[in-house]
């Protein structure tokens, strides 16, 4: 039924985290998530998200609400928000990017991946392994060979090599 009322009631959805906590959100904002959009098209109003814990869901909702109110005039404001949004630990960023990926929120995936890239580009190989939980499966000889092929890329030179995993 098409409603032309000026005080049209906004359709609300309920998102449920893996810990069974429920959050109400406007449908128009929630459909920034491709996953949620699909479920809405299948007539769901209660959206269970078993892959997203409460803490992460709260952050995601905050992101979607901010980006849901995007207009031509508040671009700077949203840029600032995004900059602050990614100032989180690697652990939190990982949880967020997994959730954003599951929820198919393209702009958030891009934002988070860019944040990762910016923060890891000067890190040492060891730090990368620690951050991403990747075991070294090279033998010492293999590793030396790969290293040797691009020794110059590992040199300190003018860039400070960052060994921290945070």
């Amino acid at each position, binding site marked *: 039924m098409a409603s032309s009322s000026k005080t049209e009631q906004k359709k609300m959805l309920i998102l449920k985290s893996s810990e069974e906590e429920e959050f109400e959100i406007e449908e128009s904002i929630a459909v920034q998530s491709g996953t949620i959009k699909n479920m809405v098209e299948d007539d769901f109003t209660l959206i269970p998200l078993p892959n997203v814990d409460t803490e992460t869901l709260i952050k995601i909702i905050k992101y979607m609400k901010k980006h849901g109110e995007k207009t031509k005039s508040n671009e700077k404001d949203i840029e600032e928000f995004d900059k602050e949004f990614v100032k989180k630990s*690697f*652990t939190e960023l*990982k*949880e967020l*990017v*997994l959730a954003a*990926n599951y929820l198919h929120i393209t702009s958030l*995936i*891009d934002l988070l*991946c*860019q944040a*990762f*890239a*910016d923060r*890891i*580009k*000067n890190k040492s*190989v060891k730090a*990368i*392994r*620690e*951050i*991403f*939980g*990747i*075991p*070294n*499966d*090279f*033998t*010492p000889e293999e*590793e030396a060979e*790969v*290293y040797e*092929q*691009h*020794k*110059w*890329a*590992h040199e300190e030179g003018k860039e400070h090599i960052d060994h921290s995993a945070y």
Partner: protein
Amino acid sequence: MEGEEGSSNVTQFPADSMCILPPEIITEILSRLPVKSLLKFRSVSKSWLALICSPEFINTHLSLSTNEEETLHLIILNDLEFGDKWCFKGCPVASLFNNSVTEAVDLGYPIEDDSYDLHIVGSCNELILLWFYGIQQLENTRICLNLDLGGKDHLTIPYMVWGMMSSIVIIR
């Protein structure tokens, strides 16, 4: 890993960092890294090595790279100090047009070993890939070089060089 207890190659990770990111996300992240970081991160693991060296990834990375600072000119120097060997250096575009001293990034080689063949496969979207013979081939490249190699039609080089370049200049 069995029999590898206590080896420095086996690291115990705390529980929270066992949150493993799937390959498509790793690819998204790596696509946004500068070339130098990517070369370094080939050492992270075998799967990262395979990913970073794959033609599909190289194309993805190329299409995302718009960073002007990454654009280098590759300068191939014939350095008599090394007995008529070739040296490779790279420097930013802008500095070539200024009269200021050009700071060239040393790409690390006087070529010492003549037994390898290099094929300058060509430039594609400002990326020139010089392939270490026998390692890889790049399918969709065009060769558009303007070089006077003084009679040589290929250069010999022992390493694979991968940088963002917009032209090759030979200086004697």
